[in-house]
């Protein structure tokens, strides 16, 4: 019985010792998982289907920059000087995929690009040269989803010359897709 008493007492004291050290929660984030994107199909509201063909694919280095502001203080704590400095730095590898040009039909339409992804992705409005005929509707998404854009009617008989290069990239720039969109003319 005496041994049992010592056992219980020892067990309690040990538990007290362990429990006194509170468990600290961790960040469960997995830094090794990088963003990925896949384009599984390009369709339109009018029922057109467009082929997805990879034209070029390679890995590249991401380079970023920020502007560093430094404040120098005098001995009494007041501000002596504030300076700006631009810093460039490399930030990982990006997988770049360029598709073959997708020639959209001449009619006004809404384009739907089906995306599979495990990341947040963005699709900024391409810089317009000439009259804008292509407008992004969905400029951001998360995970699997659809990117959408609208195109106005090409009333000309010929295909448009100002191709809109749409980039869709993951938030960490791990993958960048480039889809050149052209639009056929009425006679095409």
């Amino acid at each position, binding site marked *: *019985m*005496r041994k049992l*008493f010592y056992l*219980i*007492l020892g067990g*309690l004291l040990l*538990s*007290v010792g362990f*429990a*006194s050290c*509170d468990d*600290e*929660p*961790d*960040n*469960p*984030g*997995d*830094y090794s*998982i*990088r*963003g*990925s994107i896949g384009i599984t199909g390009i369709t339109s509201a009018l029922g057109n289907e467009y082929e997805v063909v990879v034209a070029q694919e390679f890995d590249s280095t991401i380079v*970023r920059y*920020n*502007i*560093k*502001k430094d*404040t120098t*203080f005098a001995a*009494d*704590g*007041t*501000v002596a000087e*504030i300076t700006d400095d631009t*810093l460039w730095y490399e930030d990982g590898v990006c997988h770049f995929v360029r598709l073959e040009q997708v020639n959209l039909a001449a009619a006004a339409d809404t384009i739907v690009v089906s995306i599979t*992804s*495990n*990341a*947040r992705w963005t699709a900024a409005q391409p810089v317009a040269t000439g009259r804008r005929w292509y407008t992004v509707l969905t400029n951001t*998404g*998360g*995970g*699997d*989803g*659809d990117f959408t854009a609208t195109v106005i009617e090409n009333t000309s008989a010929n295909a448009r010359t100002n191709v809109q290069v749409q980039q869709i990239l*993951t*938030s*960490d720039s*791990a993958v960048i897709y480039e889809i050149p969109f052209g639009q056929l003319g009425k006679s095409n």
Partner: protein
Amino acid sequence: MIIASLLVSVSAVAQITVSGTVVDESDFGLPGASVIVKGEKGGVATDLDGKFTLTVPNENSVIVISFIGYNEQEIKVGDQRQLNIKMEPATQMMDEVVIVGFGTQKKVNATGAVKTIDNKALESRPISNAVQGLQGVVAGLNITNDQGGGLGQEMQINIRGVGSIGEGSNSAPLVLIDGMEGDLSSINPNDIENISVLKDAAAASIYGSRAPFGVILVTTKSGERGLRINYTGNVRMQQPISVPKPVDSYTYALMVNDAFINRGGTAQFGAAQLDKILRYQRGELPYGIEPNLNGDDWAFGQQSYGNTDWYDTFLKDVAVSHEHNVSVSGGGDKVTYYFSGNYLGQTGLFNYADEKFERLALSGKVGVKFNDYVSFNWSSRLVSTDNEKPSALNALFFHNLGRRSPLMPIYMPDGSYNKESMINNLQDGGRQGDRNLLLYNQANLTIEPIKGWKIYVDLNSRIENKTGDQNFSKLSYVKPDGTSEYYSPLEGVLAKFETNANGTFRIQPGPGESTYMRYKGHVNYFQSNVYTDFEKTFNEKHYFKALLGMQTEYYYNETIRMATKDILLDDTPFINPTSSNILVSEDKGEWANLGFFGRVNYTFDDRYMLEVNLRYDGASRFPRNQRWGLFPSVSAGWNVANESFFEPIRQGIKLEYFKLRGSYGQLGNQNTTSFYPYYQQMSTLMGTVILGGAQAGVLPVFDPYSTSLTWETIENAGVGVDLGMFSNRFNASFDWYQRTTKDMIGPALALSAVYGGDAPRTNNAELRTRGWEVEFSWRDRIGADWSYGISASLSDYKSIVTKYDSPTGRLRGDAGAEAYYEGKEIGEIWGYRVEGIAKSDKEMQAHLAKANQSALGSNWGGGDVMYKDVNGDGKVDNGAGTITDHGDWEKIGNSTPRFAYSFTLEASWKWIDFRAYFQGVGKRDVFFENSATFFGFGNGDYQRSLYVDHLDYFRYAGSALGANYEDPYYGRLRGDMNNKQVCDRYLQDASYLRLKNLQIGFTLPKTAKLSKYVEHARLYVSAENLLTFTNLMIYDPEAIGSATGEYGAGKTYPQYRTWSVGLELTF
């Protein structure tokens, strides 16, 4: 040679060997009985047949035989060498007495639900007051605390659950200290002899309408024969527990960015600032703050880039307190006395705050027995408490502490404290002190003209003087250009200087303002009891006792408050009579009671018991024609074990005590919040009318009211079983009860609009509580040196509103307040069911196509919560939020603490004793609604409290904080309510098991040399709140705050663990 042989002969005579057998009442050998020589070390234990052999010094030695459950025996050896000792079963159970209203009863004959505990539950524990020590000790006595461990923190007490939901009444039990109403938290725990809890109407009805929800009777220590001087003291070290762990500054910025982007916005922290944050963390930048772009002020708030853990900054690792208690008791045949002095000095857990709580208690009790007929007792008790802290250490501080950004550095470049650190707010922002002086005086005269007939006269008074003050001082900081600017010691609230409806002030100084407030309150309470009882036994079988008495009470209180805004000297503030900014208020009230009571007890042959109580009460709080009420109760009991047919069971399974009892009673509740609840009041306020160029005061007409408003009445019914086995080594009891509170004040059904007003509230609501309690204990000895005991209790209750006119049937009131309806179970939580967290936009869009969530928010996407469309109408909402139309809301939980339990393990071996006391709640659901401390973000982008626990939120791959999309706990971080609706996913399990007290003590052996000078000495190590087992995230289960509190749940003073070392000495 002859001398040597003589010496040998002498020593041979001195050592005597004695043998014998110890048997029980049935002549069976009693193994394990302790056999020792009185005053000597060591001893033996009887063997399996009850036999023993012992060597004693000489014939004058006295052998002491003891065994749990049996009366101890002492036998002088004399010329006996063979002893046969028959042990008698202890009559402790039979003789054990419980304290009941206006008297005592043998426990075996008590028919009400009464539990009496001695002071062992409070002994050697580093507690602040007796209430804290009683938590979990008595089944059905529910003592809860959701507000953490602030100095002077009050705990909530109820007996057998919530008693009333009536507007303007309270259901706290009546606390009587030596027969007079008092405050359990103000009494010195070392002065307590025992505590009785009267749980049902039969037990409490003698106290009438002051005690419909039970009574706690506290009996303090009295003097005994022989002089004793006792000292107990301890030093305590307190350390905070369950302190949230905030994220570092860089993680904080990334989480905020996520939240902003998730809501459809842009990141708040750009790359440049993120870089600065990292550089500061690496030590490359000397300060965490710099001037803003204009240079005219500092870049405070989210523009700074420090890295501060605010809980670490403010909370001490250890706070030290100490307590000392000295008592002197003694007396003889005629006079007994007991005097004590107690000092408790506590410091708080916060740095920079200099919190102090001091309690000084002096008490004296003198008993005089003039002769065999007349005795007189006088006691006085003086308790002085002083609670001081910074004026800024309030609920707002805890709210702001939770949402303090780690980016804010502690220090400015010039070495002063950052104004956003709130350190200056505590150190220099003003102090607040609350002082209370209580003086109790009690005189009791007892006359016994003939044997069995006693007359008692009690005169009791309590005088309280409460004083306090609070000042806020001006605070300023230095800007980059060297100029100073003021800021308020209360961050984030508008400046206010006004009087509330209840006479208190709402003082929130603006920048550059200092304020000073003083209050002085006084309470006079006087009570008298004159009663007589007579008891007699006829023909040995008929026991009869009658009690008849009268009680009067008078209570008066007044409080005067003054405050001024124009303070000339912040360091020595005073009320400036010439100030144009002065607030003055006075409130006072009084009530009186007159009660007549009687009780008759009849017991036949210690087998059948009957008790009838009657109380006739008049209370000043009610209108003249409603003032009086008659409250009867009856209880009965049957000592089955005393029946002749029970003898075989008694012998067979050693069930020596088995009693069935039942009770029924009715009581009125006069404990209204207001002393004048049935009188309408008209309060002046500033109107929207301008007269003579100035805003005019107006006197609004009161709302329509009912003249038939009357008392709440409480019906109690219950049954119970008490049993004792194995010679009182095992005791158990079980109770089942039902309590119905009738005629609670509630809203009436709406009247036609032509009436022009709201229908008056009437006595039209009912609440029913059903519950049960079970307790058991086992004590035993093993050999001479070992003894141990195990005890446990478990109780549960449910309260249901059985009648309520709820015109709208709303499930929730405004601002999350409770709303009632017929059939509601108190504590119900209504909310949504959750299907899961969408892994992608596509999954969310597919879900929204079936269950539109637009009523709950917008901009839904991957990482957000998918709520269930329970009623299949294609959308997720709560309908009209009523009992008849609750949309997709379901009952998802209940916040009432259920299955309260405790168990105690005790053991002692020679001079070492050990005690472990566990306490817990078996079931409790809590939802932290709109809580930034639980979700990370509240409702609003700037209501943020980002802890490491919150990092388990949905994040896509490539996130700066790592991917977390497989099985996250939280949805995407957002500053809106999308992912924070009341739902089953985030309903928290607040049940817990806590090692409430652990003690190891070392008692000076009687054989030690020091024992010549000290009758008793014990050194002990004790600890409170050592271990906590709970599934509750982030919070301590006793520091969850209130969902309807001013700033929401989770923002309270931290709970703490206490280690103490103490000493007890008796001379």
